């Protein structure tokens, strides 16, 4: 077996050569070719993206493997040229930082709000009063007073050269030196940076000139400056920041290659114009545009308020109408109801009561249709009794009527004819007696004239004397004739007349002397009149002496006219009290 082994191996090799010889040769050739194929950069470049994508889709191995290398590369890149990296990530970094800041600021604003809410300044109190008066929220009043601003100009300035790239202004503004201002803005940025040496990237972001505030947002390639008049809210710089980022995104290469030609930036004015804005205090609702619900809620509230107001006014008017009818004499309201177009009343109504429409005229405006279901009744309300009596007696407007218990007192003036009808008046519900003693009879014109003539006559005396002088005696004779004619005329209409003689003295002397002097004067005149055929029964002496003196401006004249007897005719018509 030992000797056979080499021979066996040789034979096996021969056998293998015999069996798989050609295939083995092919295999060797393939091995040679595989060894010859090197991984060339060209081949790798073709395959690499696909290979990376393929591997990355399988697991995270590739990411883990590359992470340290990328970190190192990034660190090296930043170390060598931080500006380049900063420029590249500037548009991405802005929004991320802003979001974080916005969240922090929101909390801060809330705490400031609560501080403002509890502040106790004079202005705070004034705004608080305004909020209380107008019913607005306090915070809304504060916003109303603080949110008034206008973005008047926006400059886009090339950061490195300070040259003006684009400039927009509010419609009514003219700024001829925008390019110089642009240069100075850049220069001032440099000046501030050199003077105060702020931390990396620090810039002058805001400065105030009178009522103008200039906001400057600085980017790596350009500055964006806005001139704002009035109170500038936080939204303005935020919007500027966004615009600047957008400009860096869209014009990044133009900014880098800038050689003084601003033409490529002409289209940026649209972006700048988005920052121009005028917000007036009256725009404050528009300012809160996000709260769109206000747009429909406010009109709706107004409509609801209006409808509520109208309904309330209508209800109040109805209540007043019911009260008016209830208070009206001659009405008893049993039921009252209303619909949209009609008011309905049911109850009792005295035939003498006023028409319901006349009662409701007190409402001012025309009431809707009024339907009444009234049953007649006799009201004992004094106003109704009086109204009923006036109607039954056909009382003239000059006669007054009033009810005292069950007695109707008639006053004022009335014709003698009407006064006579009172004696035969019909029965009146609620009236037991008619008292017409206070009525002044309206006399025929002739009687009136005679009466006035008699009233106008005055018999004068010498001081301390009761002797009727000759001149006065002549006056008395004329007076006696007038009295007789008056007596005749009055008798003709069935009435009687009596004349009161008022005897007066001047204030000289004692009361007793004057009283007796007045008596003497009255008696003297009566004697003369009786002598002139005036019946003594028609005369009535009334010596008042100094009690009711006649008035005159002059003392002497007053004394003279009071040494007299004057005449007051009284016409009386006998009316008998009567029952119903």
């Amino acid at each position: 077996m030992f000797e056979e082994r080499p021979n066996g191996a040789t034979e096996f090799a021969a056998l293998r050569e015999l069996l798989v010889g050609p295939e083995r040769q092919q295999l060797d050739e393939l091995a040679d070719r595989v060894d010859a194929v090197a991984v060339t950069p060209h081949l790798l470049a073709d395959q690499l993206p696909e290979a990376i994508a393929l591997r990355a889709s399988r697991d995270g191995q590739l990411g883990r493997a590359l992470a340290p290398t990328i970190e190192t590369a990034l660190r090296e890149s930043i170390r060598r040229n931080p500006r380049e990296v900063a420029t590249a990530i500037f548009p991405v970094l802005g929004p991320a930082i802003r979001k974080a800041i916005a969240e922090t600021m929101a909390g801060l604003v809330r705490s400031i709000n609560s501080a403002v809410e509890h502040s106790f300044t004079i202005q705070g109190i004034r705004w608080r009063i305004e909020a209380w008066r107008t019913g607005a929220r306090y915070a809304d009043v504060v916003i109303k007073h603080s949110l008034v601003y206008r973005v008047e100009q926006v400059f886009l300035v090339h950061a490195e050269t300070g040259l003006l790239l684009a400039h927009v202004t509010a419609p009514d503004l003219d700024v001829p030196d925008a390019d110089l201002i642009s240069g100075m803005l850049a220069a001032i940025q440099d000046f501030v940076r050199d003077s105060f040496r702020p931390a990396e990237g620090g810039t002058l972001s805001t400065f105030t000139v009178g009522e103008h505030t200039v906001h400057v947002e600085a980017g790596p390639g350009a500055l964006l400056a806005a001139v704002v008049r009035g109170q500038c809210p936080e939204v303005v710089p935020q919007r500027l920041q966004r615009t600047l980022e957008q400009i860096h995104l869209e014009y990044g290469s133009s900014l880098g290659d800038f050689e003084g030609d601003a033409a490529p930036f002409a289209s940026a004015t649209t972006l700048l114009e988005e920052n121009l804005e005028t917000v007036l205090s009256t725009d404050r609702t528009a300012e809160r545009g996000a709260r769109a619900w206000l747009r429909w809620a406010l009109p709706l509230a107004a409509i609801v308020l209006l409808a509520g107001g109208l309904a309330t006014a209508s209800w109040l008017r109805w209540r007043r109408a019911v009260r008016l009818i209830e208070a009206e004499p001659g009405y008893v309201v049993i039921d009252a109801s209303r619909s949209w177009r009609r008011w309905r009343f049911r109850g009792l109504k005295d035939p003498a009561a006023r028409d319901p429409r006349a009662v409701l005229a007190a409402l001012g405006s025309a009431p809707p249709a009024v339907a009444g279901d009234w049953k007649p009744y006799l009201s004992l309300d004094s106003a109704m009794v009086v109204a009923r009596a006036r109607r039954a007696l056909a009382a003239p407007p000059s006669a007054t009527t009033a009810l005292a218990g069950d007695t109707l007192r008639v006053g004022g003036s009335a014709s003698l004819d009407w006064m006579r009808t009172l004696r035969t008046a019909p029965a009146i519900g609620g009236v037991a007696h008619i008292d017409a003693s206070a009525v002044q009879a309206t006399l025929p014109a002739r009687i009136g004239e005679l009466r006035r003539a008699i009233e106008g006559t005055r018999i004068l005396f010498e001081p301390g004397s009761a002797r009727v002088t000759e001149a006065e005696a002549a006056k008395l004779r004329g007076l006696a004739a007038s009295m007789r004619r008056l007596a005749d005329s009055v008798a003709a209409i069935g009435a009687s007349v009596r004349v009161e003689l008022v005897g007066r003295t001047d204030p000289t002397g004692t009361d007793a002397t004057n009283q007796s002097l007045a008596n003497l004067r009255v008696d003297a005149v009566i004697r003369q009149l009786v002598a002139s055929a005036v019946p003594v029964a028609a005369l009535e002496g009334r010596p008042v002496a100094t009690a009711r003196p006649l008035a005159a401006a002059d003392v002497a004249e007053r004394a003279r006219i009071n040494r007299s007897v004057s005449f007051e005719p009284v016409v009386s018509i006998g009316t008998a009290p009567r029952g119903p």
Partner: protein
Amino acid sequence: MLQKKICMVGMFGTGKTCLVQRYVHSLFSVKYLTTVGVKIDRREVQSGGQPVMLMLWDLEGRDEVRNINPSYLKGAHGVLYVVDGTRRDTFEKLFEIRDLVKHTIGDVPSVVALNKSDLTDQWTLAAADERRLGSEGLSALQTSAKSGTGVEAAFQRLADATVAPTGAPR
């Protein structure tokens, strides 16, 4: 319109501001120079067949070159060096200033204004000095802010150089 930033540099009292005043109508007060350290004016010129707006940054002159603020040089398209022809030291310092400019913003077109040429009796510069400028690659010409001589030419030469820098004086 094409805009070009031109910086006026030179030692204290060389007449930079007077040159600008002579050349443009100023908007800003001279006070800016001492407060901010720079004053900006503008003048429109024709160069290369097109209008060009020169934004002239008048940098405050200092006694020492190291005190000149390099920030304002940033982005300049051209530099106008101003030398007081009656004060030799301002000429000597010119090269130091030129080095500072070169270091800050690189090689940009420039012109040297040898100012106060009206004061001939006090003139301290010789033909050799002007030749030295030429050998240093600096284009120079005499100017007088007082009489106006050479002022337009100096700015025009610089404007042309900034608009078409190739082959222009450096």
